[in-house]
């Protein structure tokens, strides 16, 4: 039974004798020599990851102007920062977008530019008080002008993350990137066997006070991250570090098309090999780590899992899905993750970084609860009977149905009541003006539809997106069971507001 202490390992680091390897290198060492020998020989295993971490941001303190201001609203390069604390403190969040250049520039870019030493435009407004009379402020600052610039990320370093694909018939843009229709590609995130928390899945050595690599500087774990979910293997950490010591190489502002801005964070944790158990755990391979492949085409929290896949499969560039080879994209950078683990390894070997024991370990029992929205609205509550016709009817007959039923939408069905198309009052008006009486000439056959259990917000979004005012509601056999129209949804939102 090999047992080492933090103090012993730190002594070796100070003497320059510590044996440090990366989590990738550790795999072979344990496979060749076994856990016992590896635990004796290896002192520290370094990990690393470099990916999009939306739950990131920085606390900044500007110091007082003369006359002083109690900042009420703050913008940094036109990105609004949160101000709900004292006069000249704020928090700039990674996903907040520029008011002038949304989807191009955001809080993540402000942080990157700040760390790179670039000048940042600071704008602020206030209501003025007896002690803080100033009401406006516009100036240019750099990170050196700030009293404190503290990167403080509520949720970083996911232990592992679900892979994404899209079963819809259209391309979708998500926080998991661009997903092609009909399961044509897969995206994933995380460095697999290099992922920090995957190398210490029981959080024996990770907790409040663990010193880490953060954004190219030194940071600390300050507790479990938000949504920490250890029982299912989705642990997270909350971290902080001095932004002034970080580098823009390891903190990069990023944009996900039609989703928004974020920050890529370089994060690495050193795992002290205190015992054989940790030698065993840090030898985890990509093959050992599985994730669910989830259909992001389903607009619900409960997205269906299509299968489980390993990081080994994902990293190979293609996986098998429904009998086909599907190409995979990593959203995080494995190359940069290796650089994080290597840099941390060098720091320790060069006596520039000592390990710290946590004062309290991360929870291993915490559960991640969903938010239950009361009276969740679905299409079911808005459905109306559909007025239908068959393709054999004339435009004239359809016009009569429109008048008789005071509706704008006639759903075209076959004998089995299956959806064939839709005709609107506008289509009919146009046909009458042009002297067309054959219904088949004016019917729209590519119809956007809804299902009974679709969230109403999703149906509203579909209508806005495609500039239409109704969706036929169909069952799994494509049989028409009703229609949901824009007016009903509008009425709902109106009642909810008053």
């Amino acid at each position, binding site marked *: 039974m090999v047992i080492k202490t933090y103090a012993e390992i730190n002594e070796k680091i100070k003497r320059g004798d510590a044996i440090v390897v990366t989590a990738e290198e550790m795999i072979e060492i344990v496979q060749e020599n076994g856990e016992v020998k590896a635990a004796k020989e290896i002192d520290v295993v370094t990990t690393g990851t470099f990916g999009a971490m939306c739950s990131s941001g920085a606390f900044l303190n500007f110091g007082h102007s003369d006359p002083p201001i109690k900042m009420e609203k703050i913008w940094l390069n036109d990105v609004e920062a949160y101000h709900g604390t004292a006069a000249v403190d704020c928090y700039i969040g990674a996903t907040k977008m520029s008011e002038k250049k949304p989807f191009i520039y955001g809080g993540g870019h402000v942080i990157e530019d700040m760390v790179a030493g670039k000048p940042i435009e600071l704008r602020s407004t206030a209501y003025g008080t007896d002690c803080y009379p100033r009401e406006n402020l516009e100036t240019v600052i750099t990170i050196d002008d700030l009293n404190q610039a503290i990167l403080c990320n509520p949720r970083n370093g996911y232990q592992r993350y679900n892979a994404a694909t899209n079963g819809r018939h259209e391309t979708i843009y998500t926080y998991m990137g*661009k997903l092609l229709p009909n399961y044509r590609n897969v*995206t994933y995130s995380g460095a697999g066997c290099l992922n920090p928390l995957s190398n210490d899945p029981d959080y024996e050595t990770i907790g409040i006070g663990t010193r880490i690599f953060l954004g190219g500087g030194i940071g600390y774990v300050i507790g479990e991250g938000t949504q920490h979910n250890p029982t299912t293997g989705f642990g997270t950490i909350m971290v902080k570090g001095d932004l002034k010591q970080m580098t823009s190489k390891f903190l*990069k502002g990023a*944009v996900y098309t039609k989703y928004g801005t974020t920050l*890529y964070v370089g994060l690495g944790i050193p795992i002290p090999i205190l015992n054989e158990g940790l030698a065993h755990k840090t030898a985890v391979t990509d093959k050992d780590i599985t994730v669910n492949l989830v259909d992001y085409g389903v607009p619900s929290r409960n997205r269906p899992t299509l299968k489980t896949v390993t990081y080994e499969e994902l990293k190979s560039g293609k996986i098998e899905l429904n009998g086909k080879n599907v190409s995979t994209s990593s*959203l995080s950078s*494995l190359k*940069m993750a290796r650089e994080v683990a290597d840099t941390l390894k060098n720091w320790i070997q060069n006596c520039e970084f000592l390990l710290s024991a946590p004062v309290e370990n991360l929870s291993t029992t915490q559960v991640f609860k969903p938010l239950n929205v009361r009276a969740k609205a679905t299409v079911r509550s808005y459905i109306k009977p559909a007025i239908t016709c068959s393709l054999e009817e004339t435009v004239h007959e359809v016009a009569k149905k429109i008048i008789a039923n005071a509706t704008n939408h006639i759903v075209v069905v076959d004998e089995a009541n299956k959806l064939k198309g839709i005709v609107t009052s506008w289509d009919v008006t146009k046909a009458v003006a042009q002297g067309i009486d054959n219904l088949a000439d004016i019917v729209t056959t590519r119809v956007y539809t809804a299902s009974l259990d679709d969230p109403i917000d999703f149906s509203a979004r579909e209508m806005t997106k495609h500039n239409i005012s109704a969706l036929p509601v169909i069952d799994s056999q494509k049989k028409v069971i009703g229609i949901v129209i824009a007016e009903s949804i509008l009425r709902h939102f109106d009642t909810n507001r008053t």
Partner: protein
Amino acid sequence: MKKLILHFGEEIVNNAITAKVILETQVPLNILRADVHEGGGIFLIEVPEDDCPRIKAAFEAESVKVEPGKMIEKIDEKCINCGACYSLCPTNAIEITPDSTIQFKYENCIGCLYCIDTCPFGAITIQE
């Protein structure tokens, strides 16, 4: 095979130039991509390496501007080598090297531009 980009100006966009060049040169050139509207058009074509000078001359004789076929370009300084673009490419023009570097093989690119809006760092640009 070699790729060429053809620029057709407004004044010649209605002429059957490509057909004429094929008949004249007897080269079975492959049209990979074509964007044509009344203001002009752009073709991406693939031709056998040896026939390239002849094809180029034939198009230029018809006032078509001919350029080497590179529809997109990766800016290496902006690329962090994540690979977000990799699964979007239908023609294997994006490669991951053993050390996890992302490399573009422009000779395979057909200019579909699927990859452009997947890059979180704006590292892929369209060649004008």
